[in-house]
């Protein structure tokens, strides 16, 4: 019912919650929401809520990057966040979300991974970013990416003494050098909208997720949804994402 209403409104250039097509819902960001984490952020996007927590652990580097720390992003579509989510191992939507957020962070080189090397070839920091969905009212992806980069900006590197991590004591801030931001552009017939509500998400033909870095470079793309996107519409979608990314980036502190 709400989907039908959302569709009819969009045809007339309007949205259920009276937003413009290129307008995000109200965003609130709180940091340090979980005191055991090395850094954390709670993002509220309208009614959508996501928490990102960062934990650091020591581990071995990958053989092809012996002097660099590693980054792992994981997402939990916890059953408390939506009647459509079930407990159990992550489904394909959760895996996709985690991997798209991962690529935005990784490809932007937002972390100076060389500074996370402890002993070359032997020991490096592994940065875990865990994304916890709290309430799914649409656009979990952009909210998650925003939570992830904010949590990283607010994370610290723990102290190590004789190979043991001293929990609760920190030596430095996590070396974050860029602030990639994710903007998903939804397409419904010939209309393009940002930050879709769940009712709008359900009627979109397709979506294009665009991750944009501080210098306006695009560092990750993911086309989603059941329909194709006309080749000639792509550039317009990139432009919408780049423009909005500047606004969102100002919220990350």
């Amino acid at each position, binding site marked *: 019912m709400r989907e039908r209403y959302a569709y009819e409104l969009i045809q007339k250039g309007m949205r259920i919650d009276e937003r413009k097509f290129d307008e995000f819902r109200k965003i609130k960001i709180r940091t340090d929401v979980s005191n055991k984490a090395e850094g954390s952020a709670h993002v509220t996007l309208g009614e959508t809520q996501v928490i990102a927590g960062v934990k650091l652990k020591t581990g071995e580097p990958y053989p092809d990057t012996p002097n660099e720390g590693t980054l792992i992003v994981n997402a939990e579509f916890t059953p408390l966040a939506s009647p459509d989510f079930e407990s159990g191992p992550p489904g394909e939507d959760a895996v996709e979300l985690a991997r798209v957020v991962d690529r935005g962070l990784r490809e932007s080189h937002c972390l100076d991974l060389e500074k996370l090397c402890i002993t070359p070839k032997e020991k490096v920091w592994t940065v875990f970013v865990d994304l916890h969905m709290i309430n799914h009212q649409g656009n979990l992806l952009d909210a998650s990416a925003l939570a992830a980069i904010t949590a990283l900006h607010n994370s610290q590197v723990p102290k190590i003494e004789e190979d043991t991590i001293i929990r609760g004591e920190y030596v430095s801030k996590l070396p974050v050098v860029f602030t990639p931001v994710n903007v998903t552009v939804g397409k419904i017939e010939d209309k393009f909208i940002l930050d879709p509500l769940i009712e709008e998400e359900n009627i979109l033909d397709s979506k294009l997720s665009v991750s944009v870095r501080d210098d306006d470079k695009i560092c990750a793309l993911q086309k989603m949804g059941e329909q194709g996107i006309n*080749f000639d519409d792509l550039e317009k979608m990139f432009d919408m994402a780049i423009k909005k990314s500047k606004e969102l980036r100002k919220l990350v502190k």
Partner: protein
Amino acid sequence: MGHKSDKKLIVNGKRADGRELDQMRPIEMQIGLVNRANGSALVKFGDTHAIAAAYGPRELMPRHKQEADRGIIRTRYNMAPFSVDDRKAPGSDRRSTELSKVIRLALHPVVFVQDFPKATVDVYIEILQADGSTRVTGINAASLAMAAAGVPMTDLVTACSAGKIDGKLVSDLNGIEDNFGEADLGYAMIPSKNMVTLLQMDGALTKEELVTLLNMAKESCKKIYEMEMKVLKEKYEKALE
């Protein structure tokens, strides 16, 4: 992307394997091979080999998964354990879970799912040998397999990769270029409709570079499309004789 390396990927304007910047690797396509399937195809992009088989439309089980007014498509992308340098553990992982999903969505727009309510078309892709661009090679094989199976489709889906290596924009990345390049783009389209059905990129590109790369990918797809149509015609014209 972005592993630091002194490896030169372009020497004197040519790529390490001797190709021009916009040149694809030799492509081979074969239809058939899996006679138990309703349709199958093997596609080779240089040293990347993908085989795909399509089953259906067939009844979807369990029944509660059936859709009353339309059929569904299921896909599985899988890499053979021996297809890569270090043996890959068999079975699905996060990467193959994601790729199976995006491949399904890349194929979905061409299929008349309304024509087979309560049924499924299952498409299985196995990567037998991996040297970059496996997902797009797999999509081409899958699309041919579906056409060979007689799945009701508006058109083929054609796919290719493109990327940026040593500062230059190139078509069809091989494994080394994929690992050590600066950006890679996976792309699939419905040529007759100018519709993009798979688009994934990682790297760091300006919008202008990205648009150029997309146009290169589109050109490659046109060539691949002609080859695919030729292979299908040869196969089925012969069958009619």
